[in-house]
């Protein structure tokens, strides 16, 4: 059963990807994507039944899977080298070579190929990751079907490039599943590289100048991570003599020499998770079609980086490295939230917020108590759902109004009420209790409370992120509302994915106590007492059910009263008495008796949080922190 399931979550996407690529008919492609999605989603759930496991696939056609992976690895690296030459990018060339040569040397002269290393290992963390990837990833793929159709209409493409697009999109799901299930560090490395490559290809998908430029940037930064990975891996092997991550972890908290390779591996995770100072590639990745942003650059791939850091957490617990990681994460959390305030591009806000939240998760990994790890896992789950939803909303809105600038979304409720409400739901699940993200944030803050610097950064950061979320949610509602607004029409798949995701983010939050007891507690150990849906520990209480019930009642009551407001008097908004008195006109009589339309905008506080102003400093501090972290490890 297990091999079957593993094959389903890892190999089926590969097959489906090939199918998408070669069977160039849109209905077949749709069927393949839908089928694969449903399959892997179901399998991922079934895997929970399995619980933790270790597994090695052995051989196929007499060749060991290990060698296959190694071969594929080199093949991939040469492909990257090829692109490096094609793009004439020196950095990528250097980084590719820096990976190929050490890796070759390592494979040929160091690795003891006879040693038995289990290829796969899964615990709750891996299984949760698989579920996120498979369920949310599939939903995003569904969403991509109608989306890419419109997208290509917008671009007026003669020859559809969707086969290529779905090839990478679906392939990526498999790679990601492989990554989180790998136990052999070489396998991990291989999947790591595949995600890098998929990301590169998808960012460049539209083939515009900016797309290629940003894809190149993504590639070199991630390759830098690859280099760090390779060296970390080799160094770790030389210390522990094992390729098995479990073996490395089982060695327990380490110090001295082992911290450097761990630091390097975490650095690889940082690049993938676009932590400061590597954030620029992820921002650039926003030129890709929105499903790509949703899938790769928010809910799953970037989580690979976080996953690595989190996976290795037990190994560096209580060390200086751990503290360094916490500081780096907290700093990213604060800095990216701050820069997000100055942004008006909806996707960029989401991107910054993603980086910021990843920072928070990494910070939790760095704090490295059982409470913090619990927080990190909760955050991973709920952030993925909410953020994927928000990306899809922005994509839908963009198709609806032709802009991704939040200023243009003012009063969206009047045009696209359904999408507007779902977007607001998405936003509220990011910032308000009792939803999961906030539960995670609460755990994070409580577990960070002993650490002065971290807690300062976390409290500033969480306040700042409230600013850009709240105003975005609010401005969608702006407008004089006199009658009921009819819902807009949407493609069935779009509506399905949005509704399901929105419902899921809310409902899954409701089940957070269950998720905790069922999945997290067995893995990290008991941290919270759950009674009646209330998380409690000696240091804190978080009442999920009660707040849920009261708020639900409140929302329903408020909604009923709002509905009743249909028959109350509608007033014009206050404009110092200079209103132009025509129904529906939002203007005032200005100088020279000319009607002036009112206009309101957000504050972007460029002077405090300007992107240009902050980025340099932030990068500088980020780099310094990383140097400190690695240097401290040495």
């Amino acid at each position, binding site marked *: 059963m297990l091999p079957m399931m593993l094959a389903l979550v890892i190999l089926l996407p590969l097959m489906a990807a090939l199918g998408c690529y070669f069977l160039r008919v849109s209905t077949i492609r749709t069927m393949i994507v839908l089928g694969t999605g449903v399959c892997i989603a179901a399998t991922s759930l079934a895997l929970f039944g399995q619980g933790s496991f270790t597994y090695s696939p052995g051989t196929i056609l007499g060749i060991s899977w290990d060698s296959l992976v190694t071969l594929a690895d080199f093949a991939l690296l040469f492909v990257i080298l090829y692109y490096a030459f094609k793009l004439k990018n020196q950095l990528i060339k250097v980084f590719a070579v820096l990976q190929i040569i050490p890796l070759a040397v390592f494979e040929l002269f160091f690795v003891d190929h006879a040693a038995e290393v289990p290829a796969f290992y899964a615990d709750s963390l891996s299984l949760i990751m698989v579920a996120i990837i498979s369920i949310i990833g599939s939903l995003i793929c569904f969403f991509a079907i109608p989306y890419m159709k419109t997208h290509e209409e917008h671009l007026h493409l003669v020859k559809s490039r969707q086969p290529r697009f779905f090839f990478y999109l679906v392939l990526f799901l498999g790679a990601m599943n492989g990554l989180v299930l790998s136990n052999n560090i070489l396998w991990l490395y291989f999947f790591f590289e595949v995600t890098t490559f998929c990301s590169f290809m998808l960012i460049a998908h539209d083939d515009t100048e900016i797309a290629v430029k940003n894809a190149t940037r993504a590639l070199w930064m991630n390759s830098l991570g690859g280099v760090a990975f390779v060296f970390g891996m080799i160094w770790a092997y030389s210390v522990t003599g094992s390729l098995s991550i479990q073996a490395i972890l089982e060695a327990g908290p380490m110090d001295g020499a082992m911290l450097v390779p761990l630091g390097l591996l975490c650095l690889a995770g940082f690049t993938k998770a676009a932590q400061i100072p590597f954030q620029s590639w992820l921002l650039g990745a926003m030129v890709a079609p929105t499903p790509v942003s949703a899938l790769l650059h928010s809910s799953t791939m970037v989580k690979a980086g976080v996953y690595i850091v989190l996976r290795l957490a037990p190994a560096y617990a209580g060390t200086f490295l751990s503290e360094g990681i916490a500081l780096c994460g907290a700093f990213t959390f604060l800095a990216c939230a701050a820069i997000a305030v100055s942004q008006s591009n909806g996707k960029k806000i989401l991107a910054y917020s993603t980086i910021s939240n990843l920072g928070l998760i990494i910070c939790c990994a760095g704090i490295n108590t059982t409470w913090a790890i619990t927080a990190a896992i909760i955050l991973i789950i709920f952030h993925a759902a909410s953020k994927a939803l928000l990306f899809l909303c922005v994509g839908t809105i963009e198709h609806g109004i032709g802009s991704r600038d939040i200023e243009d979304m003012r009063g969206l409720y009047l045009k696209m009420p359904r999408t507007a409400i779902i977007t607001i739901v998405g936003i509220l699940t990011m910032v308000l209790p009792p939803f999961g993200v906030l539960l995670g944030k609460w755990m994070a803050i409580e577990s960070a409370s002993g650490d002065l610097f971290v807690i300062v950064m976390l409290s500033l950061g969480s306040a700042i992120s409230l600013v850009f979320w709240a105003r975005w949610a609010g401005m969608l509602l702006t407008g004089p509302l006199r009658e009921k607004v009819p819902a807009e029409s949407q493609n069935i798949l779009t509506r399905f994915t949005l509704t399901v995701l929105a419902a899921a983010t809310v409902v899954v939050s409701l089940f957070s106590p269950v998720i905790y007891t069922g999945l997290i507690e067995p893995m990290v150990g008991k941290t919270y007492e759950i009674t009646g849906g209330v998380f409690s520990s000696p240091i804190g209480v978080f009442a999920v059910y009660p707040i849920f019930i009261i708020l639900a009642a409140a929302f329903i009551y408020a909604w009923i009263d709002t509905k009743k407001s249909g028959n109350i008097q509608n007033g014009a908004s206050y404009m110092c008495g*200079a209103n132009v008195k025509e129904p529906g006109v939002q203007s005032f009589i200005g*100088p020279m008796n000319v009607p002036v*339309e009112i206009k309101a*905008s957000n*504050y*972007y506080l460029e002077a405090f949080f300007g992107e240009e102003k902050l980025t340099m400093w932030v990068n500088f501090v980020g780099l310094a922190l990383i140097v400190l972290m690695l240097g401290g490890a040495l």
Partner: protein
Amino acid sequence: MARTIIPFGPQHPVLPEPLHLKLVCEDEIVKEAIPALGYVHRGLEKLAEIRDFNQMIQVVERVCGICSMLHSQCYCQGIEEMMGVEIPERAKYLRTVWSELHRMHSHLLWLGLFADAFGFESLFMQFWRIRERIMDLNEATAGSRVIVSVNVVGGVRQDLTPEQCSWILTEVAQAGKEIKAIQSTMLSDYTVCKRTKGVAALTKEQAYELGAAGPTLRASGVAQDMRQLKYAAFDKIDFEPVVEYDGDCYARGVVRFREALQSIDIIRAAISGMPQGDISVPVKGNPEGEIITRVEQPRGECMYYMKGNGTKFLERVRIRTPTFANVPPLIAFMPGLELADVPVAVLSIDPCISCTER
């Protein structure tokens, strides 16, 4: 960029009078400000065609209630000069006393409103409490709190008894004491300074070039005060124009604050130097000719141009009031201010729309 367009006025709580500003802001920094007037325009200059030159006194008093006394004084001085009437000395002194009382109450009123503009309610209350002393003086000596209506062509309508004079002296002295008690708040409180220093600054050259008048001009370092023209009793009473050099809202506040105190000295001098005698002379005939007269109102230089044609109806009364002169500087210094500073900056010129538009 992210712009916000704000209709500031005509009805707006921080504007004592209707005035509209179309403000275009970015993160609350004003990028563009275009005023619209006309909410108070009555067209009273044209009333000269149907009210005789005596009745016009009551009309020009109502150009504005706050310096009504100085409007009628300026008007009467002009008519008297046109008709060659020399008014009694005592009348000159009486006009000086009431006009300085007006200046005091106007400055106190303004200081209060100014405090209110930067959200300092209790300071507003204190200034207005002190001001009530002056209002009582007006009511008791002239018959009305605001529009005293004491001027007539040829002199004044009311006289002051010696008891009233000494009462005025004690009341203004008391007011002076109370003003001094809040001097440190107005002039050196951290929050007040923070809100007013460096806001809407005009250099000496700018102020002069833009035609600013009164305290707005003096705050920028130009020592010009129409009382130096030595009308009324100012030929006998010495005073130095109050000058500040920074040209910002703070400086404008200081000028008015010091002028309010200076008025006390002038009132004291006027009462002590007041000769006995008639308070008005009879006037015969009708005004003829052209005249320009100027007086210093609390808000600055007020100019009347009048043209008589020998009938009892004047051919033209043209009033150039101080705020009219101070609006161009206002338009000029608005861009770049913070929205929160807009009321402070607008108030700093002590805008009197009613006399601007007449």
